[in-house]
């Protein structure tokens, strides 16, 4: 596949490759592939070329161009990009003026030398798990363009899976990083609630919103995560903690971890493919079965809180211009604001109890395992799927196993299983709060042993000539 962020940065920093050439190649690849995938809703070519020239000049002058020098990246279109309208997947927001400043995480990546190339498709207001956006179209899964990419950060996962950019940013309220990462076969990190700044992003559910990176390797994810970390007084939920870098931990000895594989709720409705993926990781880590009491109720409480908080946030526009919303999003938001207060108060109290239950498990386990999704990517437009003997909504069910975990803010690294000739499936590696470092070490060890890894999609034949001639050299490198 194309070069990793690590390789690009090493080459650019070492003067062996120009950032301007990397960016030009990225735009050629986007031009060739995006029309078939619908990952990008906008690109910022001029800005990217100027940034690339700055990086190349820094190298020429002997200045440090940053740890991600010349690495192209893109962001879910709920991140503010100065001079660009922040869509959040909606047409209502499209009427707003362009953002006056960058989101904090966009600034941090650019300060590290990474080069923004554009913004990515998503479900409207991040309320969905499939990125079938009624305004901007569906994002296609690079492994099978007739299938969904997952959501709501579908553009972010698909862009990375297709090699349009080596890294991207997304957001995760109930699973919106973990679900598309799993369905597109890439890595996605939902860090501890409060770890990364959300300043300059469009909120969905304040008490559940997280942001995080996607990548095709553990090392790239770690390099990206490290430059994103740090306190930010502009996000009141961002913890006042120093950065805890993880990239330097990857080469340390394979960690000896007490792993638990979540049973009960996390297995009952899972497809054979999801269980097979889970077992592959569980076997490698000698995981013991363990139950997390209350998981089904936690998912339900997260579901109700999401509808209520999201509905409340959008209530003014629901009153004035309900017809401008995606109907599926609108009806869920309205139903959310009509819920009795007693339900929401109980959901918050239950949340505290459930967090204590989960923290108790971490007295006996270092890492918990669960499927990322109950099934693999479904065909675009398919509303329901059989699951556990019932016909269930695809949109709602994709978050079955992610919602209970984000409900209590635990860090999760979603890893792609190596599954030859099969659609991607992912597994959630879950740790105690603030223990992302351990997740990276475990994932790196699993990747080194060949259990997990991002698989190159079979790209559409029409794009092969464009790829063969680009300076990434993909045509010469062949499949990996």
């Amino acid at each position, binding site marked *: 596949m194309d070069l990793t962020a690590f390789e690009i940065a090493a080459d650019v920093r070492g003067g062996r490759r120009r950032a301007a050439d990397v960016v030009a190649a990225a735009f050629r690849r986007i031009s060739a592939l995006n029309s078939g995938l619908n990952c990008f809703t906008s690109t910022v070519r001029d800005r990217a070329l100027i940034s690339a020239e700055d990086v190349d000049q820094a190298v020429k002058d002997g200045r440090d161009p940053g740890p991600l020098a010349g690495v192209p990246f893109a962001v879910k279109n709920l991140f503010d990009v100065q001079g660009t309208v922040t869509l959040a997947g909606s047409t209502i927001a499209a009427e707003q003026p362009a953002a006056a400043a960058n989101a904090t995480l966009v600034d941090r990546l650019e300060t590290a030398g990474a080069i923004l190339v554009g913004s990515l498709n998503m479900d409207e207001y991040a309320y969905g798990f499939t990125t079938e956006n009624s305004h901007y179209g569906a994002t296609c899964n690079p492994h099978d363009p007739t299938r969904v990419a997952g959501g709501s950060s579908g553009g972010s996962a698909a862009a990375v899976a297709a090699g349009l950019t080596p890294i991207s940013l997304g957001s995760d309220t109930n699973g919106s990083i973990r679900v598309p990462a799993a369905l597109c076969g890439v890595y996605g990190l939902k860090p501890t609630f409060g770890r990364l700044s959300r300043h300059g992003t469009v909120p969905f559910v304040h008490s559940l919103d997280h942001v995080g990176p996607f990548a095709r390797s553990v090392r790239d994810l770690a390099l990206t995560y490290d430059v994103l970390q740090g306190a930010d007084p502009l996000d009141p939920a961002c913890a006042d903690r120093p950065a805890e870098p993880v990239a330097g931990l990857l080469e340390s000895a394979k960690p000896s971890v007490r792993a638990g594989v979540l049973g009960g709720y996390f297995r009952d409705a899972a497809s054979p493919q999801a269980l097979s993926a889970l077992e592959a990781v569980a076997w490698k880590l000698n995981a013991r079965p363990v139950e997390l009491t209350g998981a089904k*109720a936690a998912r339900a*409480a997260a579901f109700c809180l999401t509808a209520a908080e999201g509905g409340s946030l959008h209530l003014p526009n629901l*009153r004035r211009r309900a017809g401008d919303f995606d109907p599926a999003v*609108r*009806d869920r938001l309205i139903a959310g604001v009509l819920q009795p207060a007693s339900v929401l108060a109980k*959901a918050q109290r239950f949340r505290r109890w459930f967090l204590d239950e989960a923290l108790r498990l971490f007295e006996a386990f270092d890492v918990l395992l669960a499927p990322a999704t109950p099934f693999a990517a479904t065909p675009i437009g398919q509303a329901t799927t059989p699951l556990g003997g019932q016909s269930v909504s695809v949109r*709602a069910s994709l978050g079955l196993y992610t919602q209970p975990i984000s409900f209590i803010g635990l860090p999760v690294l979603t890893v792609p299983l190596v599954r030859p000739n099969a659609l991607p499936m992912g597994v959630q590696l879950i740790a105690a709060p603030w223990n992302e470092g351990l997740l990276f070490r475990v994932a790196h060890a699993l990747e080194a042993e060949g259990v997990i890894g991002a698989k190159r999609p079979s790209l559409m034949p029409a794009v092969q000539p464009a790829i063969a001639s680009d300076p990434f050299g993909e045509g010469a490198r062949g499949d990996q």
Partner: protein
Amino acid sequence: MSEDPIAAFVKEAAALQGLLLDDDSLLGVVTNTRVLRAMAADFIDWPLPADLDPAALLRL
């Protein structure tokens, strides 16, 4: 025939919130309200300690 109580609730509650629902939207909101009620049933009666305080929820 009496009106579906969920539909009646949705109509009245939406009107009180200043929300105007056409027929399609009413159907969609009623469907989603049923889903939310079913979800709430999973935790609304969950036995919790009387002194459980959710205030420190996000102090991880």
